[in-house]
């Protein structure tokens, strides 16, 4: 119960920030060289939730994520699977017992994340729409 209250407090504290952030849509981006131009929401879920580790064209995929409980990360999962990050983490924890391992690359901030995608052809990640550069290819806009 205490824990629940704690989470509730955090959520309430974060709520004005997320709502500010929510105004700005998130974009799912890949390396410019990646042949995939567009992806569906299901394909994105399958990729980020560990069902598949490859793009629809069967090329290996490397999801790139922000470390910890970054606002953008929370926002992303909320938008993609409708779950708070804690539940997503719980999901991964459960899977860990069956020997399934997360194959995501973790980056400390948005800049590093963008750099990694630009440097890595197999990478896929999410950034606020405002941070999109010419070097990135947008395959999905999250926030409709």
């Amino acid at each position, binding site marked *: 119960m205490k824990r629940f209250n704690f989470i509730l407090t955090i959520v309430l504290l974060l709520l004005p920030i997320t709502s500010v952030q929510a105004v700005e849509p998130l974009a799912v981006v890949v390396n410019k060289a990646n042949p995939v131009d567009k992806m569906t929401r*299901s394909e994105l879920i399958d990729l980020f939730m560990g069902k598949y580790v490859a793009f629809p064209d069967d090329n290996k995929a490397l999801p790139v994520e922000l470390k910890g409980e970054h606002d953008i990360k929370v926002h992303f999962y909320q938008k993609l*699977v409708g779950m708070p990050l804690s539940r997503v983490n719980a*999901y991964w924890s459960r899977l860990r017992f*069956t*020997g399934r391992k997360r194959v995501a690359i973790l980056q400390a901030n948005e800049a590093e994340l963008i750099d990694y995608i630009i440097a890595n052809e197999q990478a896929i990640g999410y950034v606020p729409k405002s941070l999109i550069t010419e070097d990135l290819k947008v395959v999905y806009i999250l926030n409709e």
Partner: protein
Amino acid sequence: MNKSGLVIRLAIVIIFTAIIVGLITTQIFYRFTFLNEQARGEQSINQLYNTVSPTASIASYLGDKELAEEVINGLISNDIVTSAAIETDVMMVKSDNYFKSPDTLEFVLFSPFQKERRVGVLFVKANKIFISAKADKISGTNTFVVAIEAFIITVISILVTYYVITRPILSIGKALHSISPGTKQRIKKPTSHQESEIGQLADDVNDLLVKAEQQMLREKSLRSEVQVLESRFRMLFENATSAIVLVEPQGDILLYNETFEMLIEKLQLPLKKNYGNFLQDLFVMKKELHEQIKIAFANDESATSELELISSSEEKMWVQVVVTQLITDDFQENYQITLHDISKRKQQILLLDQKANYDSLTNLLNRQATEQRLKQLMATKVPFALIIMDLNDFKPINDIFGHDAGDEILIHVASQLLKNLRKADLLSRWGGDEFIIILPDAKKEEVINVCVKLASTLSKPHNLSQHNKSVFVTASMGASFYPDDQVELLELIRVADKAMYQVKKEKSANKELYLAFASDMNKPENNSQSS
């Protein structure tokens, strides 16, 4: 114990009812329990599904066999699950004994992230045997409880019924059985039923017994009264000096008294059941009896008649007969006939009649009676011949031998005359030595014939018993005819007398002459006849 007795019957009914109700109850309860358990089993499986569905969804979504197996193993570790399986597009994970059958429960699994995305199906088979075994166990216990309950209720019912209802009723019944109505005996009210319906029953029975006793006492006194009355009537009837007979219209005798029996005995007749209508066979003059009855009944009176009884003995018996019509309570016509013996009175009357009408010496009709008879004959217009006879030479016999000899001659003459007359003829002593003979319906020739016979009979000598002397008498006779000569009695006698004196007068001249007819008196010549 009586097999059809109240207690046994009641016990049988209660036991059977208990068994049947128990059986039905347990059956219904078993069905109910079974269905309940089945429903509960399904509910449990649903709950199990709810428990495992997130994991199963993840396993299906990822196509993770290990995770799926974990779910399956978890499911089949439950008693109510026999086997389970998870099927997705890419894999099929199932427990060892799983096979698809119609009773398999299906749960569709959706993606944990997209609720509309179908990722697989979870199959679960419920453990029917376990469920029914569980139902059996529950209902088995229940049946046992119901049976015990039924047994206890049955025993209590029987005991209560026996002690509260049956035994008191039986005791009343037994008491009633041994009581004879009309006595002082009463039924004892059961102590535990002073106020109940059974107590009421005992009270009512006692009331009835009281009434029966009163009724019987009343009847008893009435009966003794009737007996006294009956014995008096019997005495009256049996000791009556008159014979009393009750007959039916056809003459069947219903009742008779001792006097009647004695009368029949006296008549030397057999005692029969029927002597004809109104006992007519007993009487000489049946016609008169019936006539009297007819007249009397027409006037609504009792018929009374004096009648002679038929009798083989010489003594004549006369009775006064009274016939009364009786209508019985059931509208049957009967006749009461009383026969009162009047023989003695009749005899006395007869004797008086004899004295008044007959000559004491010759026992012939005297003059007075003869006149009466003649008047009767004339009243009925019967023609007859009248002969007046006078003895000749009677006076000398009287004078010589005395009056006794004269009387003897008169008796002798009378008997001789009677010998030569018919039954219908009349012989009378007219007075002294004069006799009158009446011959009904006689013609002149007959008169002559009779007179010839009489004359010749008289002419025979008679031996006087006291004098040892033979004498004979002759007679002079005059005859007249009714109604040819005279219609008046005195005239008729006078003319006959005249004819007779004519004979007497001429006797000195003609010794053989003894008869003259009055009709010949007017003719001086040929006025006599000789034989």
